C-alpha cells in the first residue's frame, strides 16, 4: 500500500492505518486458528496467480481472500478506541449420550478459551515531546506496523494452539473438538484456575500519536490436557426393534413402507455400537427424544457457527445478530502485569 503522495490530511491517514491494522490483525489471527473459515482450502500456500486486491496490500502482507466475517468488523467496531478482544475457544463436542434419563440433558459442549488476543489503539497518558516531523510520523507508524504484523504472523505459528488448528484443518476426519472464536470489546476475566495455566505476552507497541497500537495475548501454555480424538460417525440407521414396535409387540402393525418407518433415525457419536440383536440393539429413548435428537443431529463435518449471540443493552446500532459476541460500551478489560516481548 503506497502511503506516498496522498493528499489526505495526516489524521485521516492515521485513522485509516489504525482501522486497517485492526482488520489485518483479526485476519492474521483467525486465518491461523479457525479451520471453518477456509473449509475447502487446506493448503496454506497462497497461489502466485491469486489476484491481489488493493485492500489486500495493506501492510504489504497479502493473506488471500478475507473471510466474510471481517467485512462486518467495520460496521461493528465504530469506536477505534475500543479494544478488539478475540477469544479463540476449543469446544469439546458432546459426549456419547448415556442410557440414563438423568444424564440426558448433561450432553453439552464444553468451551475453553485457549487464547485471548487484545488488539487496541490506546491513548497515551503522557504525550512524548514533539519532534517537529509530524508529517512523516504516520509513515513511521505504518512502517513499524508492518514489522509488528510480520512478527504477529510468525508468532501465531509458534504458539500451542497452532498445532491444534493444523490437526483440525488438515484432515477430513472429524474430531471431538472444534475451534470457534468470539470478537468483542468486552471479556470476562479468567478464573484463577485458568490464570495459573496461562501465560501472557505483549508485542512492543507501535507509536501512533496521539496514541499507540498494541497487541497482546494470554494463552494456555499447554494443550496436552485436551485429547483430540477422531470421532466415528454412524450412518443413519432405521431402528426396527424399538420398544413398542410391531417387531417387539406382535399386537401392533408396521406402517406402510411407502410412508417410511415410524422409528427415528439419528446419528450416534463415538464407537460403533454392537451389531443388533433384540437384546443388543443401539440405544434408543423416547422421553426427551426430540430434544436429544436435536442435540445429536448437529452436523459433524465442519464447525458449527463460529460465533455466539448475546443480547446486551448497548448504545451502538445492533450488529447483525449472528456475528459477534456481546459487548459493553466503554469497558476496558483490566491489564494485569504482562511479560513484554523483551
Amino acid at each position, binding site marked *: 500500500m503506497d502511503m506516498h503522495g496522498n493528499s489526505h490530511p495526516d489524521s485521516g491517514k492515521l485513522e485509516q492505518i489504525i482501522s486497517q491494522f485492526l482488520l489485518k490483525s483479526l485476519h492474521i489471527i483467525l486465518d491461523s486458528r479457525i479451520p471453518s473459515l477456509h473449509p475447502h482450502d487446506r493448503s496454506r*500456500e497462497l497461489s502466485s496467480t491469486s489476484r491481489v486486491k488493493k485492500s489486500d496490500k495493506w501492510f*504489504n*502482507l497479502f493473506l488471500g481472500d478475507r473471510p466474510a466475517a471481517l467485512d462486518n468488523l467495520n460496521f461493528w467496531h465504530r469506536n477505534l478506541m475500543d479494544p478488539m478482544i478475540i477469544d479463540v475457544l476449543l469446544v469439546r463436542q458432546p459426549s456419547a449420550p448415556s442410557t440414563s434419563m438423568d444424564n440426558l440433558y448433561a450432553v453439552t459442549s464444553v468451551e475453553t478459551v485457549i487464547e485471548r488476543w487484545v488488539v487496541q489503539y490506546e491513548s497515551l497518558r503522557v504525550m512524548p515531546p514533539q519532534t517537529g516531523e509530524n508529517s512523516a510520523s504516520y509513515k513511521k507508524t505504518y*512502517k513499524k506496523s508492518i*514489522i509488528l504484523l510480520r512478527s504477529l504472523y510468525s*508468532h501465531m505459528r*509458534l504458539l500451542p494452539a497452532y*498445532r491444534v488448528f493444523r490437526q483440525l484443518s488438515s484432515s477430513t476426519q472429524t474430531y471431538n473438538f472444534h475451534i470457534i472464536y468470539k470478537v468483542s470489546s468486552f471479556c470476562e476475566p479468567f478464573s484463577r484456575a485458568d490464570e495459573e495455566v496461562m501465560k501472557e505476552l505483549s508485542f512492543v507497541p507501535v507509536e501512533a500519536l496521539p496514541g499507540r497500537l498494541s497487541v497482546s495475548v494470554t494463552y494456555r501454555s499447554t494443550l496436552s490436557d485436551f485429547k483430540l480424538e477422531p470421532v466415528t460417525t454412524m450412518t443413519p440407521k432405521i431402528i426396527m426393534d424399538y420398544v413398542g414396535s410391531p417387531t417387539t409387540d406382535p399386537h401392533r402393525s408396521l406402517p406402510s413402507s411407502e410412508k417410511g418407518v415410524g422409528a427415528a433415525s439419528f446419528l450416534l457419536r463415538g464407537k460403533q455400537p454392537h451389531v443388533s440383536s433384540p437384546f443388543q440393539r443401539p440405544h434408543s429413548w423416547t422421553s426427551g427424544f426430540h430434544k436429544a435428537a436435536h442435540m445429536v443431529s448437529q452436523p459433524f463435518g465442519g464447525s458449527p457457527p463460529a460465533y455466539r449471540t448475546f443480547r446486551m443493552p448497548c448504545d451502538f446500532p445492533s450488529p447483525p445478530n449472528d456475528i459477534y459476541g456481546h459487548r459493553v460500551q466503554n469497558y476496558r478489560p483490566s491489564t494485569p502485569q504482562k511479560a513484554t516481548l523483551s
Partner: protein
Amino acid sequence: MNCEVCQLKELEVEHFEIREVLRCILHTIVFHRALGLVRPKDIDLELFNITYVQCGDVELEKKIEEKIDEFISWVEKHPNKKSQICLSFYEMKNKHYSWFNKNERLYWEQWFVNLHVTHPKAHSGKSHNSKPMVDPEETGYEDRGVRREALEVSLRDVLFQIIKFVNEKKDHVPPINEKAICFPCEITIPRSIVASNGEKGFLGSGCKQPL
C-alpha cells in the same frame, strides 16, 4: 547510523540437521525484513514440529540455499567445530570524493547464527561389568530422542529471540523501498576456525564489525 547486532543463542546440531535449522532461522529473519509486498509461505520442518514463514521471493530462497550449501561444505572440511553464519542488512550509499565516486555498503543490522556441529556419540557394545547390559541401540534411540526434543525447544527459543529483537528494535530500519521485497542483504560464512574450547582464530573475516 547505528548497526544493531543480534547474537542468536547457540544450537548444537548434527550434520543432517544443519539444512533445516538454517533454513528456519535465516528465512524467519528475512521474513521480518522483507517489508515489501509479500505472500507469506508457511513451511513445516520435517525434523521438528515447527512451522516457519518464508517471504516467498524466489531469488532470496535461492541465495539462502546456496549459502547453506556453502556452509555444509565448509563444515565437512572442519568437523566438530563451532561456527557462525552472518546475515547482514545494508544500504548502498554513494560517497562522493573529489576524484571518484564510490558506492559503499552501510550495514544497519547484523545477525549471527551460532551453530555447534557435532557428531553422534558412538556406543560401545562391550561391557566390563557383570550387570546385564542395556541394549546400546535402545539407549541410542532414547538419547537421540531426548537430544532432538531439546534441539526443538532451543530452535523455538531462537525463533522467539528473533521476533523479540525485531519488535524491540525498529527505529534503525531504513525507509521501505516499495519496488523491492527485501532490504539488500548478504550472508557470509566466516572462515574462522573456532575450537570446541572457544578459542577463535579468524583466517578471513566475512562479517563486518558494528560501526
